[in-house]
């Protein structure tokens, strides 16, 4: 049984972009419906900064990847998503069209970019600490757990100065590595509640069909129904991604073949780590 995994925002763009007709079609959709060109890396003036561009590039790469797999006759038995991977996952499951997936991602990304104009936020990637000392670090600096990817790979989120201080303490506490990355908004934290009224209206602008493929959510690993999609997209902005729980739930459901659909291979690497730890215990 296979699973298509849709990753969140990539940290960078690939040096090489696809050149085939399928990619050109996705690029055109992205231009028309998201106001961003993943080839020229140009967007609507003043509104498509670094993170919005990367978010839309990530969605475009995932949509393209799903198209490629479909052309090869590979169909998912179940779909899972990580963070902003939800938008491409919705298209893959037939919940919304590709155009709508790009448009929603664009509207969410631009709302987050506006949030970042008045305050500075960052993500902190911590590798090697266990959960307990990590949460102490987070509490000491007033930042939040944003991703629990494995028992040793976490993402913190919050105000930039606090994240930078938290990274220093994480290293002092024995983290193998701790790096911060500027971001527009403190995704997957309670601080995102500020955007909720605006994004509730955004999500209400679309009709959500029942998923034609089971779609597991990354918060509590339940399968989403069409009626739950809009509320889930709001909730997931302020709650942490639980990737390890999702992977284990997928395994328990009988998945034995995972395909990461999009740029990068971080989800595969998390899965590899979880498997290696399971075989040691």
């Amino acid at each position, binding site marked *: 049984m296979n699973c298509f995994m849709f990753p969140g925002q990539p940290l960078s763009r690939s040096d090489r972009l696809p050149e085939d007709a399928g990619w050109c079609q996705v690029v055109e959709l992205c231009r028309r419906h998201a106001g961003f060109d993943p080839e020229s890396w140009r967007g609507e003036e003043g509104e498509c900064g670094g993170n919005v561009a990367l978010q839309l590039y990530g969605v475009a790469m995932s949509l393209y990847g799903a198209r490629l797999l479909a052309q090869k006759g590979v169909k998912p038995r179940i779909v899972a998503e990580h963070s902003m991977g939800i938008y491409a996952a919705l298209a893959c499951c037939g919940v919304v069209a590709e155009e709508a997936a790009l448009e929603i991602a664009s509207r969410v990304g631009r709302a987050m970019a506006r949030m970042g104009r008045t305050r500075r936020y960052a993500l902190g990637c911590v590798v090697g600490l266990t959960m307990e000392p990590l949460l102490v670090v987070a509490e000491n600096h007033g930042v939040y757990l944003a991703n629990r990817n494995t028992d040793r790979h976490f993402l913190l989120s919050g105000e930039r100065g606090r994240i930078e201080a938290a990274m220093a303490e994480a290293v002092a506490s024995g983290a*193998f590595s701790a790096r911060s990355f500027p971001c527009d908004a403190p995704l997957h934290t309670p601080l995102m509640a500020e955007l909720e009224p605006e994004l509730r209206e955004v999500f209400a602008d679309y009709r959500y069909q029942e998923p034609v493929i089971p779609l597991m959510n990354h918060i509590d690993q339940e399968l989403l129904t069409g009626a739950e999609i809009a509320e889930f997209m709001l909730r997931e902005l302020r709650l942490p991604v639980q990737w390890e729980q999702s992977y284990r739930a997928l395994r328990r459901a009988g998945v034995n073949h995972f395909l990461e659909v999009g740029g990068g291979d971080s989800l595969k690497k998390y899965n590899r*780590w979880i498997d290696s730890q399971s075989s040691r215990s």
Partner: protein
Amino acid sequence: MSEALIEPVKQLIIDALRIEGLSCADIDSDAPLFGDGLGLDSIDALQLVVAMEKEYGVVVPDAATGTKVFQSVRSMAAHIAEQRK
């Protein structure tokens, strides 16, 4: 001593990171493991730390040591040889 560890270290990298379609001969002993070389990242680094400890009983105690150890296959082999003395 460390020269004899070059090939086993390459195999350890392939096995621990489940790199498909790559043989030991494809890995340059002196190429950087991160960035432009094999393109590894911090997720891979922690996987290699655990694999080295399991296979050779050698620890990489912190990120600073890791930066030196994971410069290349040759530096990994040298670290293992040094720690096993």
